[in-house]
């Protein structure tokens, strides 16, 4: 069945506005509806694998109207968004009982999913900005949801930095419109190809790198992430770290740089520098953390650095006119790491939420010996940590291997050495988590913690199973050809995006 593309945006939006109508008495009905909507989104996202379509809203043809584009890269991100949001919603049916105002939480969550779906599907650059803002504002409110001291401080910091980033993006959109006269991504690309880059467009590209880089938490712009992710409720941390920084930051950066502006050697080196800084700084800063979720947040910075490194390496090789097979290998590694990280980082954050709900603390020094009391949490945490540290045959190993092979084949040996070094750091930090949280002595105050049951357990086990199965995505041929290869192809033939869309109308 072919789903019309706007359904991905309209369904969570309609759910977001129907949920507050249930009121206090219908809380369980509201939660059931929200879960059904997210599971429906997973089914629809799976049904779009392997398709390439556009949809003109209101039957106004481009460049007069707005179109929605579904190509391989969008399909990959839709899968990631819907799977992580379904798991987070399942987890939060039980976890959010400790907060009041649950119906407002569900409404904001659905708005965030609407925003992310809209960013991923949009074919028009101002439409991308509007959905970016919807998702960002919903996430600012969700980070400060508990209204305690630290959450408000973190939410304010996140909001100020995020608003500045959005203003940069809007300024870039205004510059692009002033220089090309159109807002549709395909037409902008064609106009830039005909007229070439001038000073205004180069400045717009720098503004886009700064704005989307801040949303993606690359290193000079990462200051909001270590405060915002620990303070948010656990399912929101999973969504933020798992998909929001990637859908709003990395996807938008890829779309703008590869498909609209086209890559050059300078841009490739800038992206590789930012990525390497992120990887190294994130990993080193995470080693010294004693707060469970803060350690996971710094680890997120480092892993996003991997993704951007893969994309930047591919960009540099394309720009220098090198071997396209090596470039596509690097981009495949980056995109596969994006998908992997979405799954296992959300699983780790859900684990930390489960530990926090059982013990009431996030500090590693106050925990210990939870292995007997919470066996399921310990098992899923072990699977996720093994995957993130790159132990074969779990999924994380394959994506890191691909990036290392691509770096060696392109003869950038120092990049390969840094990747391996940061992997060792990642292994160390997760061994630290295990040693302090799950092994060791059980302190007096935690004698009667119990394992969390029900929907939380279900969500964590689903993600753990997916973690193990994702390794098959690379090895099994039909899965790779339908899910990963179209995404790589879209990024590789960057400027053909516009030719394909204009030819289709």
């Amino acid at each position: 069945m072919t789903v019309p593309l706007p359904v991905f945006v309209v369904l969570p939006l309609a759910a977001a506005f129907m949920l507050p109508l249930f009121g206090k008495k219908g809380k369980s009905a509201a939660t059931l509806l929200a879960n059904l909507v997210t599971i429906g989104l997973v089914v629809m996202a799976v049904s779009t694998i392997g398709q390439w379509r556009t949809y003109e809203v209101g039957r106004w043809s481009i460049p007069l109207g707005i179109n929605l584009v579904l190509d391989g890269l969008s399909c990959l991100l839709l899968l990631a968004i819907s799977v992580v949001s379904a798991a987070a919603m399942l987890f939060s049916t039980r976890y959010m009982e400790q907060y009041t105002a649950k119906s407002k939480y569900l409404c904001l969550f659905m708005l965030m999913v609407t925003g992310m779906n809209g960013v991923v599907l949009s074919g028009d650059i101002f439409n991308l900005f509007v959905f970016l803002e919807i998702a960002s504002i919903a996430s600012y409110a969700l980070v400060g949801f508990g209204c305690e001291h630290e959450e408000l401080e973190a939410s304010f910091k996140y909001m100020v930095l995020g608003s500045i980033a959005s203003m940069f993006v809007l300024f870039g959109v205004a510059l692009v419109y002033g220089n090309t006269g159109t807002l549709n991504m395909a037409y902008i690309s064609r106009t830039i190809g005909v007229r070439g880059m001038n000073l205004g467009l180069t400045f717009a590209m720098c503004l886009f790198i700064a704005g989307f880089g801040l949303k993606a938490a690359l290193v000079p712009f990462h200051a909001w992430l270590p405060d915002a992710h620990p303070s948010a409720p656990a399912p929101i941390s999973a969504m933020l770290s798992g998909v929001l920084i990637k859908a709003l930051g990395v996807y938008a950066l890829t779309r703008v740089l590869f498909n609209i502006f086209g890559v050059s050697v300078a841009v490739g080196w800038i992206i590789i520098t930012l990525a390497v800084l992120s990887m190294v700084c994130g990993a080193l800063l995470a080693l010294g953390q004693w707060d469970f979720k803060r350690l996971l947040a710094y680890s997120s910075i480092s892993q996003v650095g991997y993704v951007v490194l893969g994309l930047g390496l591919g960009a540099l090789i394309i720009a220098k006119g090198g071997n396209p097979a090596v470039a596509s290998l690097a981009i495949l590694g980056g995109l596969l790491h994006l998908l992997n990280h979405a799954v296992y980082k959300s699983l780790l954050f859900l684990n930390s939420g489960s530990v926090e709900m059982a013990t009431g603390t996030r500090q590693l020094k106050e925990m210990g010996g939870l292995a007997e009391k919470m066996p399921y949490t310990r098992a899923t945490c072990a699977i996720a940590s093994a995957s993130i540290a790159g132990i074969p045959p779990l999924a994380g190993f394959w994506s890191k291997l691909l990036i290392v092979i691509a770096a060696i084949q392109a003869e950038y040996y120092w990049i390969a050495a840094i990747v391996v070094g940061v992997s060792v750091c990642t292994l160390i930090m997760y061994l630290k988590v295990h040693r302090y949280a799950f092994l060791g002595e059980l302190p007096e105050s935690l004698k009667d913690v119990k394992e969390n049951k029900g929907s939380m357990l279900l969500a964590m086990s689903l993600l753990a199973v997916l973690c193990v199965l994702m390794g098959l995505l690379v090895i099994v041929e039909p899965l790779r050809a339908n899910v990963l290869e179209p995404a790589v192809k879209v990024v590789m033939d960057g400027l053909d995006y516009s030719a394909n869309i204009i030819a289709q109308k």
Partner: protein
Amino acid sequence: MPYALCFLLFVIGLYCAVVKKNMVKIVVGILVMEYAVNLFLIMLGYRWDGIAPIIDKSYLTKGGGIAEAFVSHAVDPLPQALVLTAIVISLGSLALMISICIRTYEKYGTFDITEIRRLKG
């Protein structure tokens, strides 16, 4: 030339958001940045001796077309639609920022960001 002044206003807003220590002044700095970008967007559509892009009965020709005099003289209406959307977005963002400022004042007792530093490391 007017574009350079818009950019100057943007930089002033950015300076205010980065340097000031009072939370409300930071919010005002972000607002000034948003005004600067909206102003820049509107000025993009300007034409010398332009008229407002509102169709009147006198601009409709027989057979349902639009007069040439209108099309060649009207300012561009697309940036105006973009600015309307951007103003709505900044209104929502401002409402959220102010409510967070109020709640932070209730919890910490001050608006000074150098004293609101519980999250470290």
